[in-house]
């Protein structure tokens, strides 16, 4: 590989033994993929996928210690993925013990290491670091050293930045060395599409479901998508970007997509059009029947497949401010329609800390709290990654969370009905019976309660009348 003098000096140990090993790792990594040179990381900020202080990954902390001891800090400040713990998320005493004393017992120490190496600030902890409120939004053409798959696919596809699907630690090394090997998505040729995906659905497809279908078909290849501009338009506005965020996360987790193009919408497709598609590209047609087939193929990982859901996560990847407001309004309307005031399944919205602060200033935040919704900056995946939580019947509208945990996927409208106790057509038959039974018991309980209160009132009235009579007598 052709190296600049500075890169060669780093490799040769002139910047210390630790930097030499960092450089050796990056150079050998690039050589495996045919990189001819290392190119400077030009994005203003990095982003690390490893945000969790799991006791078991002590080898990672050893590397961090070695970097710190060698005086190596990142060339760029970085954000990190969401934190695994949030005191606002209710946990049982056993869960609390397991989380804090057993699983994430290195969280505080690891966060201290991150600060020393270059963490932007304590609030810069989200998988959606590219939101305006967070401030780590790369420019078109920026070279990045990131690893979080949903952020990489967004940065490449929607922002037009250039980043490979790196592993954790490798992305830190790129930020530390200030350079990355040039291959894959960093090259024009690596950004060409090898799949033509034609969306022919009758309505706007669910972003998470469409992304899942595309990901499972094309795996790590690059799709060029036709037909989405019918629903999203040709402008990358807030609605389109939110949709593409959720779509991309599903392509990256259900497959291994690191870059997609949407005809007439994403920056490179808008500029180059079908010239981005390789002549030998394969074709995948997605219609209503194909989406139905994909959704019905998902295995249900719950031990009791007919269990009633106990928890609902909305926000993987993290929600935008607009999405938070929209979900709140939708749930409010649905609860009103059902004659209820609070959600019937414990529901958690997840969003970056900076967006959470903005949301707290809106009227929708108070509405959400009144409806019993928890708003958190937690990572639902990390919450679910333990036997205590993985055995719980959790539902989600996230195809990423479904893929990496035992959570069960439902589309948005079904989630809305389930958590508001409304029309349960989306709920499996046995759950409906359980719910009907549960509602009947609750109704009977309310009737008994009302009867008791009425009897008490009558008794009080009778006693009052007696006292009054007696008093008069006195």
């Amino acid at each position, binding site marked *: 590989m052709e190296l600049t003098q500075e890169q060669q000096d780093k490799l040769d140990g002139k910047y210390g033994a630790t930097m030499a090993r960092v450089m050796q*790792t990056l150079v050998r990594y690039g050589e495996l993929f045919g990189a001819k040179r290392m190119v400077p990381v030009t994005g203003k900020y990095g982003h690390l*996928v490893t945000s969790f202080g799991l006791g*078991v990954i002590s080898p990672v902390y050893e*590397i961090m210690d070695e970097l710190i001891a060698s005086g190596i800090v990142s060339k760029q400040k970085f954000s990190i993925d969401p934190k695994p713990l949030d005191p606002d998320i209710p946990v049982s005493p056993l869960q609390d013990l397991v989380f804090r004393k057993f699983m994430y017992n290195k969280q505080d120490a690891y966060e201290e290491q991150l600060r020393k190496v270059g963490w932007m600030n304590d609030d810069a902890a989200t998988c959606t670091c590219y939101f305006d409120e967070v401030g780590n939004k790369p420019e078109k053409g920026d070279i990045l050293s990131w690893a*979080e798959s949903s952020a990489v696919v967004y940065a490449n596809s929607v922002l037009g930045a250039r980043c490979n699907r790196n*592993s*954790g630690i490798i992305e830190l090394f790129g930020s530390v060395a200030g350079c990355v090997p040039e291959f*894959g998505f960093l090259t024009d040729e690596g950004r060409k599409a090898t799949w033509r995906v034609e969306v022919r659905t009758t309505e706007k497809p669910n972003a998470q479901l469409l992304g899942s279908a595309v990901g499972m078909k094309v795996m790590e290849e690059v799709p060029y998508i036709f037909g989405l501009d019918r629903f999203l338009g040709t402008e990358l506005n807030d609605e389109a970007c939110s949709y593409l965020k959720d779509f991309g996360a599903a392509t990256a987790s259900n497959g*291994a997509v690191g870059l997609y193009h949407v005809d007439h919408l994403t920056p490179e497709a808008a500029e180059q059009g079908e010239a981005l598609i390789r002549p030998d590209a394969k074709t995948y047609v997605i219609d209503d029947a194909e989406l139905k087939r994909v959704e019905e193929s998902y295995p249900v990982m719950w031990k009791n497949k007919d269990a009633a859901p106990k928890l609902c996560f909305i926000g993987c990847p993290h929600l935008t401010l607009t999405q938070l407001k929209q979900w709140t309004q939708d749930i409010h309307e649905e609860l009103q329609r059902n004659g209820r005031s609070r959600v019937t399944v414990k529901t958690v919205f997840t969003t970056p800390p900076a967006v959470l602060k903005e949301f707290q200033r809106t009227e929708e935040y108070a509405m959400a709290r009144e409806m019993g919704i928890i708003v958190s900056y937690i990572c639902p995946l990390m919450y679910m990654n333990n036997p205590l939580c993985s055995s719980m019947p959790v539902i989600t509208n996230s195809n990423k969370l479904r893929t990496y945990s035992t959570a069960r996927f439902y589309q948005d409208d079904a989630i809305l009905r389930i958590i508001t106790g409304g029309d349960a057509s989306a709920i499996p038959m046995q759950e409906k019976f359980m719910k009907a039974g549960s509602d009947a018991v609750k109704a009977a309980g309310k009737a008994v309660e009302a009867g008791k209160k009425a009897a008490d009132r009558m008794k009080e009235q009778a006693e009052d009348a007696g006292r009054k009579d007696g008093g008069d007598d006195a």
Partner: protein
Amino acid sequence: MMRKFQGRVVIPGTVSARALVSHGGFNTLASLQKSLMFGTKDTICGDQNNPDLYKKKLNGQALCLPRTIGSTTGGMVLYTAAKMGRTPACMLFSEPIDSLAAAGALLTDIWSDAKMPTVDSLGSDFLDYVKTGMMIRIEENGVVVVEEAGR
């Protein structure tokens, strides 16, 4: 019966071990996380979506696979397993290695004392031929020798 396959050396080294074959992508995080987290004596595959490997012992085996899949923490997880002495004896890829597995193999080689020889690009014939339990021998030049069990 014996067959030789020529691949590309990713991490040099020689080793002999029994084959453990995954015909689907190997999800590094899903496969290793439970064993690593609970410190079990052997690394037992915890990926319910991999019928070839689920509940099978991974450490000390010659893991034969097309590629790795799943979370981009994969390379870090593999490296962590290596530092704990819990990785397969070697990794043998039928396809060119993916970026996450490459990261794990390189971090193991450069940042730990563990040895996990790795060969990629062995071709689809390799994965069609090799069966779990067959004896595998890796030679220095990327040649992988597969012998039927018991020979």
